C-alpha cells in the first residue's frame, strides 16, 4: 500500500462502516455532518490526520448534494447567502489545506513520522472549537430549563443591525439584511474550519442563526448548499495533494447513508431538549477523547517526555472514549427511534376505536 494509506482488513473495514453509521445517525439526528465523530474515529484507527480530514470532507461533499437537494425542494436554501459565503469559504479551505500541507511535509511526507505536527494541530483546533460549541449548547439547555424558553439570542444580530456596515445586502429567502463584510468573515471562518477539521457546519449554522438572524431551517439548508461547494473544493484540494482515501470514503457511505435516515426519523419522535442534550454530551465526550490523544503528539514532537509505551494507553483511552460516546449516543437515539416506530403500530389500533361520538348533547 502506498505510504499514508492504511491496510484495510475486514475488521478495519467493518469499523469504518460502523463509524460511518454512527456518524450518519448523529448527523441525521443533530443536523451536522457527523465529522466530529468520524474524523477522530479514523485517526484512532491509524489514519493520518490530513487523510482523515480529506477523506471526510470528500465524504461530506457527496452527502451534502443529496441533503441540499431535499432542503431545496422545501425552499430552505438561500442560494445568494451561500454563494456570498462561498467567496471567502474557498479562501478559508485553501488556507487550511496549505497549513496542513506545511505541517505534514517536515514529518517526511505521507504518513512519515506519524504526521505528528499535523495531528497535533488538527486535534488542538478540534478540541478548542468543539469545546466552545458543546459548552454553549449545554449553557443554552440549562438556561432554557430555568426560564422555560429556548431561543438563540438575537443580541448580536441587533448590534450588527445598528452598526450597518455598508454595503448591506438583502438575502430574500432568509429575509435578512446583513453587512457584506460580516458575511465574508463568517464564510472565511466556516471554510477554514471545514478545511481543518471537517466541521464547518458547527460554525456556519450558528453564525447564520446568531449573527445574521436567519431562521434555523434556512440556516441548515443554506449551510448544506454551501457544503456542496466547500466539499467539492475541499475534495479537489485534498485530492490534488493526494490526501483522500477513496476506499474509506465508500466505506463511510455504506454506513452513513443508512444512519442519516434513521437519525432524521429520530428528530420527529424525540423532544428537542433531548436532541440537544444528547448532541452536547456526545460532542463533549468527543472533545475529551481527542484531548486525551494530544500528549502522544506532543511526545512525538519532543515537547513532552514520557515512556513511549504509554502511547498505547493514551490511544486506547482516546479510542475507547470516542467509541463509547458515539455508540452510547447512537443507542440512545436508536432506542427512541425504535420505541416510536413500534409504538406507532400499537397505538394506531387504539385510535380507531371509539373516535366517533354521535350524537352529542346540545345545550
Amino acid at each position: 500500500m502506498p505510504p499514508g494509506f492504511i491496510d484495510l482488513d475486514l475488521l478495519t473495514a467493518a469499523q469504518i462502516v460502523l463509524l460511518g453509521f454512527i456518524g450518519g445517525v448523529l448527523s441525521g439526528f443533530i443536523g451536522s455532518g457527523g465529522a466530529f465523530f468520524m474524523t477522530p474515529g479514523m485517526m484512532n484507527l491509524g489514519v493520518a490526520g490530513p487523510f482523515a480530514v480529506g477523506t471526510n470532507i470528500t465524504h461530506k461533499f457527496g452527502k451534502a448534494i443529496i441533503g441540499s437537494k431535499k432542503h431545496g425542494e422545501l425552499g430552505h436554501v438561500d442560494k445568494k447567502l451561500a454563494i456570498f459565503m462561498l467567496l471567502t469559504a474557498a479562501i478559508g479551505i485553501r488556507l487550511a489545506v496549505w497549513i496542513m500541507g506545511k505541517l505534514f511535509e517536515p514529518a517526511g511526507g505521507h504518513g512519515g513520522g506519524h504526521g505528528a505536527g499535523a495531528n497535533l494541530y488538527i486535534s488542538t483546533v478540534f478540541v478548542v472549537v468543539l469545546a466552545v460549541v458543546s459548552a454553549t449548547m449545554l449553557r443554552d439547555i440549562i438556561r432554557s430549563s430555568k426560564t422555560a424558553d429556548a431561543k438563540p439570542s438575537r443580541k448580536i444580530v441587533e448590534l450588527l443591525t445598528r452598526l450597518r456596515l455598508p454595503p448591506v445586502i438583502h438575502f430574500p429567502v432568509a429575509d435578512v439584511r446583513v453587512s457584506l463584510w460580516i458575511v465574508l468573515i463568517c464564510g472565511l471562518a466556516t471554510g477554514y474550519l471545514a478545511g481543518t477539521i471537517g466541521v464547518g457546519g458547527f460554525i456556519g449554522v450558528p453564525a447564520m442563526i446568531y449573527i445574521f438572524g436567519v431562521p434555523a431551517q434556512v440556516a441548515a439548508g443554506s449551510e448544506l448548499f454551501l457544503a456542496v461547494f466547500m466539499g467539492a473544493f475541499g475534495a479537489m484540494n485534498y485530492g490534488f495533494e493526494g490526501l483522500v482515501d477513496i476506499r474509506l470514503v465508500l466505506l463511510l457511505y455504506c454506513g452513513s447513508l443508512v444512519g442519516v435516515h434513521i437519525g432524521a426519523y429520530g428528530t420527529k419522535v424525540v423532544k428537542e431538549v433531548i436532541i440537544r442534550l444528547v448532541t452536547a454530551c456526545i460532542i463533549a465526550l468527543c472533545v475529551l477523547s481527542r484531548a486525551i490523544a494530544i500528549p502522544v503528539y506532543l511526545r512525538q514532537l519532543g515537547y513532552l517526555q514520557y515512556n513511549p509505551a504509554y502511547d498505547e494507553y493514551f490511544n486506547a483511552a482516546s479510542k475507547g472514549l470516542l467509541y463509547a460516546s458515539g455508540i452510547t449516543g447512537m443507542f440512545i437515539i436508536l432506542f427512541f427511534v425504535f420505541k416510536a416506530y413500534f409504538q406507532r403500530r400499537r397505538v394506531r389500533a387504539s385510535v380507531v376505536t371509539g373516535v366517533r361520538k354521535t350524537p352529542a348533547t346540545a345545550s
Partner: protein
Amino acid sequence: MQLICISRGTYAGGKELAEKLAVKLGYACLSREEVTDAAARAGIPVGRLEMSIVRHRPLNEQLAVDKERFAAFITARLAEGALEGGMVYHGRTGHLVLPTIDNVLRIRAIQDAETRINRTMVRLGLSREKARKYINEVDEDRSRWARMVYNVDCEDPSLYDMVVNFDHMSVDNTAVALVSLAGLPEFQQTPASRRELKNLMCAAQCRLAIGDDPRTRHIDAKVKAEGSKITVTYPPRHQSAAAPIPEILTSVRDVSEVTCTMAATNILWVQERYNAEGTTLPELLEIAEKWNAAVTLVRLIATDEAEPATDKAARKGEGADDAFPLSSTEDDGGILDDEEAEEAGDDGGMDATMDLLIRHGRAGGRTTVTGSPQALIRSLDRTLQVSLVVIGDVFLSRSDSLRKRQTRELTAYVGESLRVPVIATEELKAQYLFGASQWLKLAGLLCMTGLMFGLVMTHQEQATTFMMKEGLHHRVLSVVLLVLFVPTFAYFWGQSASYLLRLVKFE
C-alpha cells in the same frame, strides 16, 4: 351585519376612527385591549405570551398551546360579534383573525412618523428620542406577534382592503368614507360567509373548551368544524390525556359529532370531487399510517377569482357563458351572489371519504373552498404542521389542456406558499409507496452500487496508487475522477438506502 377590522400602530389614530365608525354604523366597538383583558380573566396567560414575544423568545410547549387558546378566544369573539349585529374591531392583528372570510372590511390606519412621535411625547411625557424608540419597539412587537401567532407578515399591504393616512384625511371624513365603503356588496355577508363564520366560531369555542378543562389544558389540539361536525387532531405525545375530549365537547353548543384523531403531522388532499372507492384513498391511508399523519380534505371549487373585484363586476355584461356569473354593484341590491349556494346539497363525495378516513383513524377534518388558488391558501391554518399536499382532479369545468396547465400552476403556487412537498395523486405510489417499478429501480441501484464498490475494493492497490501518482496530469485526472465518482456512488447508494427503508416503512 358585518365585521370591520382596523389594524393600527401605536398612536396612529385607529382607535378614534373605530369608535366613530361604530357609532355611525350602529355596531359594537371592540378593542384589542378589551379582548386581552377578557382572555386574561378567562385564564389565558396573555401577559406571559406577550413577554415571550417581546423578549424574542420562542414559546415553550405550554405557551404554544396558550397561544392557540388566545387565537381561538379572539376568533370566537369576533365571529360572534359579526354574526350578532356587526362589529368594528381595532387592534394590532384583527385583519388576520378570520382569514377565510372575504367579506370582512380590513383597514390599515397609518400616520406620519413625526405625528406619532409628537403624540407619544405628549401622552407619555417622553423625550423625542425615547418616543421614537418606543414607537419602533411597539411596531416591531406587533410584527413579531403576527408572525408568531398567525405565521404571516402583517406589513404585507395585500392583507388590507384599504390603507388610510390620517395626515391626509381627518378621522371624521375617513369614518364617513368608510361608511360608504362598508355598504358595498363586497363587504356584505352572504349565506356562505355566515356558514363559514359559524364554523370558525364553533371550532374556536371547541378549542377553548378543551383549553379550559384542566385535564386537557396542555394538549396541542387543532380543531376544525364543518356544520355541527367537529374534528380534533392532537399529537401522539398527548394520547393518554386526550381521552376526555369527546366528553368535554358535549357541552359546546351545536356540536353533534366529534372525531378525534391522533396525528404527528397532516396531509392535505386537495380535490374538487372525492371518490371513496378510488385508488387514491387507499394509497393516502397507507402513507398516513406510515407517517402517523391525519388526512385533511380540502375541496376546491375553482372560480375565476384571481382577477380584481372591479373586473368581476365589469364582466357581468359579457359573462353569459361564465360558470359562476357575478352580479354588478348596480343591480344586486347590495348582496353579491352566494357562489357556494350552487353547490348546496352536493358534498362532492366528502362525506363518504371522510367516513372511510374516520374508520381508519386518519381523519384530519374537511374544508370547502370556493374560489381561486389564492383563496385556497387563505383558507389554510398556517400554524398547522403539514408534511405533504396531494393535488387531485381540480378545475373540472375546464378543458383538458387548460385543466392540466392550471393544475400545474396550482401545484407550483401551493408549494411556494406552504414550502412543503406538493405532488399529484398519480405520483403518490412512485414517490412514497413501494410497487413493481420501485423494486426494479432498487435492483438497478443496488447493482450499480455493488459494481462501483467492488471495482474499488478489488483494486485497492491500483486505486490508491492512482490517487497518489505524481505529475500534474495525473493529479488533475485523479481530482476529476474523484469529484465524479464520489457523488455518483453517494447517489446510487443513497437512493438504494432510501428505497430499502421505505420498504420496511421506516420513513
